């Protein structure tokens, strides 16, 4: 479904991705793990076209590399940016409705809205509250819900567990598994290696802008190099 091949990206003249290749199949749950500065966020920002890149990015046969960022969600790719980035001054419900923006003016937003409230009852309780006044975990739910408004085919998540309490992280990942079961493909980028390998089916290890290891999540979790470098075992 998503095919990335030989992707190079640079900030100014400093190249941070040196030819990354990865695929996400239909209905797959894939994670990309790696240390800070490995280029994980850059990879996602390339896929969403927030920054320019060299190399092939195709989604369901469509060449993404030629599209501006605001056209990407229309194809069915929903990006949950790093650091949540909810619209703090808007209510929870307005944030969610904003997520349906790419669907167009006449789109039915009520059905996805109901589904998201069913998935996150906490958001239903707080629908009129300004999103900026929510806790970090709740804001992450808003950011996730906002992305789901598109009824995306591919959900792209950038460090969703960053800065959240372990108990909230566990809940978040339970939700991701639930979303995945409904048929949404997921590309998850995480520093939290143990948790991501526990929920994903397949994984890539990114190091200094290169894929150094890939395989089934269970195999990666058992791999000595991964255990040593990222799990501290």
């Amino acid at each position, binding site marked *: 479904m998503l095919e990335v091949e030989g992707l190079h990206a640079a900030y100014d003249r400093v190249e941070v991705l040196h030819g990354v290749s990865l695929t996400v199949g239909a209905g797959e749950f894939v994670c990309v793990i790696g240390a800070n500065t490995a280029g994980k966020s850059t990879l996602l920002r390339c896929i969403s076209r*927030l920054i320019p890149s060299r190399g092939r990015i195709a989604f369901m046969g469509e060449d993404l590399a030629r599209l501006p960022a605001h056209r990407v969600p229309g194809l069915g790719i929903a990006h949950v940016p790093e650091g949540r980035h909810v619209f703090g001054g*808007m209510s929870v419900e*307005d944030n969610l409705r904003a997520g349906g923006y790419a669907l167009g003016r006449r789109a039915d937003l009520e059905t996805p809205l109901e589904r998201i409230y069913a998935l996150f009852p906490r958001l239903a309780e707080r629908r009129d509250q300004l999103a900026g006044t929510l806790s970090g975990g709740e804001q992450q739910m808003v950011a996730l819900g906002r992305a789901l408004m598109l009824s995306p085919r591919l959900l792209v998540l950038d460090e969703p567990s960053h800065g959240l309490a372990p108990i909230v992280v566990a809940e978040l990942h339970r939700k991701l598994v639930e979303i995945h079961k409904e048929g949404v493909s997921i590309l998850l980028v995480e520093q939290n290696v143990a948790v991501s390998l526990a929920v994903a089916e397949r994984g890539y290890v990114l190091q200094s802008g290169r894929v150094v290891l890939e395989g089934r999540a269970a195999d990666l979790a058992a791999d000595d190099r991964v255990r040593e470098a990222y799990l501290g075992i």
Partner: protein
Amino acid sequence: MTEAVASPRAAALRPGRAVLIAAVLAVALAVPLGLDPQGYPIRVLTLTLLFAAMGQAWNIVGGLANQISLGHAGFFGIGAYASTILLRDFGLSPWLGMLAGMALAALAAAALAVPTFRLKGHYFALVTLAFGEVMRVIANSWSSVTGGPVGLSVPFAPDSLWMFQFGAARPYYYICLGALVAVTLVFWRIKAGALGYRLRAIKENADAAEVIGVDTFRAKLQAGLISATLTAGLGTVYAQFSYFFDPDTIFGVATISVRMALIAIVGGVGLTFGPIVGAFFIIPVEEFANAALAGRAAGLSAFVYGAVLIAVILLKPEGLLALFAALGKRWRERRR
């Protein structure tokens, strides 16, 4: 969070506010009837209304799109020069000249937007500042068309609505009041509408807006074009009201560009009534400082004016409307 970022669906008029607006409008309509139609007070009021409208036009790009422009004098002057030159050379009604100036300003804004909207913060402000200055230099040096540094006089015509010329200040007062209401309605429609929604999303987080599918460049461009077009229209009104202008006043950084921004910022940037409150504070303070202190020491009036502005910003950086709201709240609490 302040009122500026309250939910747009909550922006619908509350009944109490509607009554207040109607009352203020009624007073604004009645005031000139009690004033000498040729006098100084009505001229100051007319200018205040015009500057409020200019601040409001600036508010569309500065307050809603969050692009701090210091070059709006460029559009203002384009409007003034376009209508006056067309009147001088072809006898064209300034109302039609106004439309020509607005179209020209829209073209200039579009040409300016392509390279500048990718710039952030003070870089954008600097480029717009340069734009206004370039327009001033052009007007100064292209003497065959603009009259050069000597300036342009609006050719005299007898009292006529079609020729946009009146012997007394009163008709100009009502035209400026109408312009302020019109620009404010445009601002309010944008703010409460879909474009306002997009602009708010961009203001809060440009990347997040892009990944949900907002074309950030297009939204900012729309706001910029509307703002520039309205500003040019007001430039024509200014030319007809003052009969004379020269490049240094009409394209002035301090006299026009910064003052437009200041009016919106001091009143409450991004708020529907911010520029109106700002203009009714800044213009009278400026006039008073000039009238009362000009004879004393050189520069004293400018010093007092500057000190008052600094005091406001130090007291409440969000502007006068926020200051009034805070004072009102404190007063109600004390009474309890």
